C-alpha cells in the first residue's frame, strides 16, 4: 500500500468527506492503486518543459467588474435546504 490508513483519514478530512468503517479499507486499497498508477509520471523527462496553463495558449478573459443584476435570489434559494429572510441557515458556528 502506498498510502497508510492515517494518510487516507487525513485526506478525507481535508476533502470534507466522512468515510464509513465498511468503506475505509476499500478506499485505502483503491486510492493506493491510483497513486501508484499516476506515479508513472515521475519517470517522464520534463526538465525544460513549461507546465501547461491553457489548452489553446490563451489568457483568461476578464470582464468589467460591474453588477449584472441577473441573479434572482429567491429563485436560487428555492434549492437551499434551509433559509430564513434571504440567509442560508447552518449549525451554530459561534457560542
Amino acid at each position, binding site marked *: 500500500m502506498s498510502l497508510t490508513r492515517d494518510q487516507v483519514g487525513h485526506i478525507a478530512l*481535508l476533502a470534507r468527506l466522512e468515510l464509513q468503517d465498511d468503506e475505509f479499507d476499500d478506499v485505502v486499497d483503491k486510492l493506493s492503486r491510483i497513486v501508484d498508477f499516476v506515479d508513472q509520471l*515521475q519517470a517522464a523527462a520534463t526538465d525544460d518543459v513549461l507546465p*501547461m496553463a491553457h*489548452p489553446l495558449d*490563451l489568457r483568461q478573459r476578464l470582464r468589467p467588474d460591474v453588477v449584472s443584476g441577473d441573479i434572482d435570489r429567491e429563485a436560487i434559494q428555492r434549492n437551499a435546504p434551509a433559509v430564513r429572510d434571504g440567509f442560508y441557515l447552518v449549525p451554530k458556528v459561534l457560542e
Partner: protein
Amino acid sequence: MSDDPNAWHGRSLADLARGLEVGEFRARELAEALLARIRSLGLELNAFITVTEDEALAAADAADRARAGGTAGPLAGLPIVHKDLFCTRGVLTTCGSRILGNFVSPYDATVVARLRTAGMVMLGKTNMDEFAMGSSNETSHYGPVRNPWDESRSPGGSSGGSAAAVAARLVPAATGTDTGGSIRQPAALTGTVGLKPTYGRVSRWGMVAFASSLDQAGIITRTAEDAALLLSVIAGFDERDSTCVDRPVPDYVAGLSRPLKGLKIGIVRQHFDQGLDPRCAALVRAGLGVLRDHGASLLEVDLPNLDLSVPAYYVVAPAECSSNLSRFDGVRFGYRAEGAANLLDLYCRTRGEGFGAEVKRRVMTGTYVLSAGYYDAYYLKAQKVRQLISEDFRQAFGQVDVIAGPTAPTPAFALGEKVDDPITMYLNDIYTIGANLAGLPGVSVPCGFADGLPVGLQLVGPHFGEERILNVAHRYQSVTDWHSACPGGFA
C-alpha cells in the same frame, strides 16, 4: 412509409427536418411517438433520469404554431435530449448524483438555451456516470444504463444514457459532455456518432463542472450530418464562459461533402500496440482503407508520450474536480445530511452520504495531489507532461490534416466486469484522453461490428478543425452503412 409514425424514430434529424418542413407530420405527433418509445424502451435501458413529457408537448405545439405562422427556424420541432449535467430551467438536474437529487436549476445552460431558441423540443434528461466520472455508466446513483446492442453490457460512459438513447432510436440526437472521452467512447460502444468539439468552441456555462480545463460540451447523433447541423447552433462565443473562444462559427453542414482527395491522415503507430482488441484493430484498419480508397493518403505519425496521457489525466482531472466539487456543502443547494452536530460535521456527512464511491476516490485523489508537499511532484509534473503530449500533437499536425485510429480498446464490456478495478476502467480512455489534454476536437463514427457489438473509428483534428473531421466522417458514412444498423428489438 413516410407518414407511418412507426418509422419516424429511424430517421435522422436532417430527414425529420425535411418532413416537418413539407408538412408530412407535425412536431407534436413526432414528440408523442418518441415519448412512447422512451416510456417503454427507455425504461428498459434505464437511459433516462427524467422524462419531460409536458414540457415537450408544449414546446412541440409551439413549434407547430411557429411553422404554421411561417416564423419557425430550420430546427423547430425537432427532438433532442440532454445529458443530466446540463442545467435546464425548471427541470431536475441531478448529474447522476444523490447530492443533486433534488436540484431544479433556475436557468438554462447556454447549450440548452441555444437549442431551445432554435425551437428544438427537449424530451428528457439522460442518465450518466455520477458527475461524469466513469466510463461505463455504472457510477450513476440512478443505476447503470444498458447497451441496446446487448443489455448485459455497458453503453460506455459517462454520456451513456445519451448514447444508448440515440442508438436505440429513442431520439435522433442528444447532448453529451466529454472530459476524457465521455462522448466518443460511449458513441463507439453503441454504434453512434459522438463529437467532442475544440476546448472553448462551445460554452460550458450551465454545465455542472467536473474538470474545467478539460470539459467540453458536444453531441451524439447517428450521422455526422446531424452533428454538423447541431454544432452550427451550439458553437460560438458566450461571455459567461471565460474560456469560450470568440471566433466565427462556420456553417459546418456546408463543408460536409468536400472530397477526400489530397487529405493526409495520420495513423498513430502507438495506437496499434498491445492493448487494442485485435477485432477492433482489424475493423479500424478496414475503415482507414475505405478512406484511402476514396482519395486520402495514410501516413504514419508518432505520439511518443501517449502512454503518459492516462496518468497525467488522472492527476489533472481529479485535482480540478476536488476544487469544483467543494461547492457541494449541504448549505446552498442539494442534499443535506440530517442531525449534524456542527458545521464541519454537516460538510463531512453531507458529502460522505451524497457522493458515490468513484466520486469520493477522485475528490480524494485530487485533494492528495494538491496537498502540501505533493503539488510539485504530481500536479505541476502532470501539467508539464500535458505540455509534452500537446507538443506531440502539434508535431503530428505539422505533417497531417487529421489523425485517425480506434476510439476505444475493446467493444462494449459486461456490466460489473471492470467496476471493481479503477485502473482497468481508466484505461478505456487511452485513445480519447489525449484530445482532451491538448484541447483538440474529435469524433467517433461506427466502423463495424465485433461479434455483434459496434466498434468506433476516431478522427481527431487540430484546434478548430471540426469542419474537416466532420467532413471526413460524413464522407465515410456516405460510403459505409454501419450507422444504419439498428440493435435487435429497437427497430
